[in-house]
């Protein structure tokens, strides 16, 4: 279940960008992994506590997203969704191989001792690390919620998502809003990176699996519902755990994919979403 909330966090960025801009960012996983590598590098080079590295990692991911949007995405926004998909696909591949080149294929872990310390919460064992991860996930979701509801930029983003033309008429710089929204998506992804590195491990190829899971969750939860994401994440997490227990460990990933295909074909608007 703890894994489930983490999944929710990992996919937040993708769902956000998709819900607001209708862009499926296939490089989302790579932004996340980038955050992880940044935190890793900071730990190894400067001994920086990974938790403190989170803002830096998020910043790096957000900056990469910003650049990607500014240089590439902005220009094909008027073209079909499919072209954008292919573009982010290409960017993802570029990043994956860049990581491969810079950090080799070795699996990296951001190992910190205090993560392992056990805590008991109403009779269930957690590790301190898991508790921190859940807290950060929740904090990020709340933070995003506050940003969207209380800040001017957040409100501008929401208005643009609902009706671009009216937003433009109201004086909102729509192109800038898009740029900010996409960068925020990258930022959100970057938050998950260090966590992934601490709880599990990161490798160049990890991004793809993350993106796919994130997309599964987005579709499962439905467009436009952020709490739905957490629920969906928990469903996925529990489902995977059960698959491991009852079927076999190697079929774990299969659960997610089959669920994904099932949802796409049966109920594309997801469990909680507005109708697509």
């Amino acid at each position, binding site marked *: 279940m703890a894994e489930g909330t983490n999944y929710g966090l990992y996919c937040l960025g993708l769902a956000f960008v998709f819900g607001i801009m209708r862009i499926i960012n296939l490089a989302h996983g790579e932004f996340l992994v980038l955050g992880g590598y940044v935190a890793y590098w900071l730990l190894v080079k400067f001994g920086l506590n990974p938790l403190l590295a989170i803002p830096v990692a998020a910043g790096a991911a957000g900056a990469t997203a910003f650049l990607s949007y500014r240089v590439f995405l902005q220009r094909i926004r008027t*073209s*079909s969704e499919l072209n954008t998909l292919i573009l982010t696909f*290409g960017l993802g591949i570029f990043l994956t191989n*860049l990581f*491969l080149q810079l950090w080799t294929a070795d699996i990296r872990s951001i190992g910190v001792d205090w993560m392992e310390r056990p805590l008991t919460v109403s009779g269930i064992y957690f590790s301190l690390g898991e508790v921190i991860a859940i807290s950060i996930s929740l904090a990020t979701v709340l933070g995003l919620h506050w940003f969207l509801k209380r800040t001017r930029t957040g409100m501008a983003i929401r208005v643009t998502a609902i009706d671009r033309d009216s937003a433009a008429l109201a004086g909102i710089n729509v192109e800038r809003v898009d740029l900010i929204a996409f960068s925020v998506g990258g930022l959100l992804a970057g938050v998950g990176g260090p966590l992934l590195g601490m709880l599990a491990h990161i490798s160049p190829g990890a991004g793809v699996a993350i993106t796919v899971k994130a997309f599964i969750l987005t579709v499962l939860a439905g467009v436009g519902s952020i709490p739905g994401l957490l629920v969906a994440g928990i469903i996925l997490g529990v489902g995977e755990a059960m698959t491991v227990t009852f079927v076999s460990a190697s079929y774990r990933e299969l659960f997610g994919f089959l669920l994904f295909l099932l949802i796409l*074909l049966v109920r594309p608007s997801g469990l909680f979403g507005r109708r697509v």
Partner: protein
Amino acid sequence: MAGAVVMGVVLIIPFILSFNPYYVSIFISALILGGVSIAWNLLAGGCGQVSFGHAAFFGIGAYASAILVTKGACSPYLGIVAGGICGALGSLIIGLPAFRLRGPYFALAILGFAEVAKLLTLNMTWLTEGSAGILNIPPLPALHLGGLTLDFHISRTTNYYVAAALVMAIYLTVYFMKRSNLGLAMSAVHGDEETAAGIGINVVGAKAFALVVSAFCTAVMGGFYAHYVRFLSPDTAFEGSWSVMPIVASLFGGMRTLIGPMLGALVIIGVDEFVAKQFFEMGHKLFFGLLLATVIVWAPAGLMGDRVRMSVKGRKR
């Protein structure tokens, strides 16, 4: 005709390379990719259905052929054809439900299918040996033509020409399909599905036909691959590259033409081998990602295209 020129070049490449096995093998890879790319483009450029998971059909074809030959004592030639059929069947399993989905969702559904296929292959160890892979797959048996013996075990060049023959067969298949009424139907579906349905075209039928042929051809190349490299594992047969590279090759070469994807494959494999690998030993594929991103933003028509209309639905948002 551009197609004839490119195929002519393909035929004389081994001579240019003085039959150097290393270089020939690089171009065999290009041919395998080219065949898959042309097949992919039938579905994407011809019918408007972009697939992100052609690796599924490639891997199914490869494994089907390998299993039939190693466990069923079947001839590799038959195995390759059988592999093609298996790939085609697989495509129907995912395709028929998936055709209900709009563009990007279709692409992702096929991607999901590719991953499922890979996982299933990994886990069905009783059939596929799982992650250990299938070793020592027999090569194509030698052909005796008159007094001439074509051996495929030692010689790279003979394999090259088989690959070239397969690519030509695929090219001709696609060519005749596009020229037929079915091809017209596909173009109509590509342009605007609703309108096509409105004028009485069997949209699902057209898409299904394109998919089946595309998958069959891809799976056949997969079968050839199995008997050429003679080793399969779920990771190599269903590698993401087999899904990505056809897209890059087709986009770069030009999706509006039939031979564009083959040309694209030749160029990008060539550049990858001779340029990218020198600078980026491990991450050389980043070149493909960057190429994909750059081409789709700045030159969606690719090398051969003369019109910029790239978007699958042809509509500006």
